[in-house]
């Protein structure tokens, strides 16, 4: 019973990632693609959590947290590139 529910949830996350992948490929503007990639990161974290329940291991918790950190930093870098055109400023007056 529990296995079935977990499999259904995993399948739904995979469907969500597939739909988001369509938005990454066909997104008309660059911010659409950035948002879709960020959401793919969140869905990937959820899928890893479900897989770690299915395998009954705690070894994936580090992977989940690190994926959260990397997704956050990647989205910030991408959005700064969209807004300013540079990711790393040499000397700003801010």
């Amino acid at each position, binding site marked *: 019973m529990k296995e079935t529910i977990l499999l259904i949830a995993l399948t739904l996350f995979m469907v969500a990632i597939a739909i988001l992948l369509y938005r990454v490929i066909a997104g008309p503007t660059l911010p659409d693609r950035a948002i879709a990639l960020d959401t793919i990161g969140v869905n990937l974290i959820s899928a890893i959590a479900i897989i770690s329940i299915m395998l009954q291991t*705690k*070894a994936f918790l*580090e*992977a989940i*947290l*690190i994926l959260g*950190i*990397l997704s*956050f*930093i990647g989205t*910030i*870098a991408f959005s*700064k590139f969209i*807004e*300013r055109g540079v*990711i*790393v*400023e*040499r*000397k*700003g007056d*801010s």
Partner: protein
Amino acid sequence: MKTNDVILQFTAKLVFFIIFFYAVHIFFAGHYTPGGGFVGGLVTASAIVLLVIAFDIKTVQSIIPINYLSLVAVGLIIAGGTAAFSMFMNEPFFTHYFDYFYLPLIGKTSLHTAALFDLGVYLVVVGVTMTIIQTIGEDE
């Protein structure tokens, strides 16, 4: 138009410490659970990269005044010194030592010289990653 990223800079100030202490936890947990020097170094470097993105290179260099190339050298010296130490004790290269100690407040702890080697790996990974990012970022 003057751009204003108050929210990004405030979030970066808070999240930097969360990521950095998580990296320290990964580094020390590497002996019994997933993690270790390499992942810890990469997560630390990504925390510094978050600061570089939110502010700029000159500001981060004044906040964290570290020459990352010498960080690589220090890491290599620590790792090589840990490996070479056993040669002076008439044992093969890379022989590690461990023992159990009773530390105050923590209790029975196993201290292993592999942690020192891991510290060298950590410093080298942080130094190399930050050198690459600084060199590419300063290029015009």
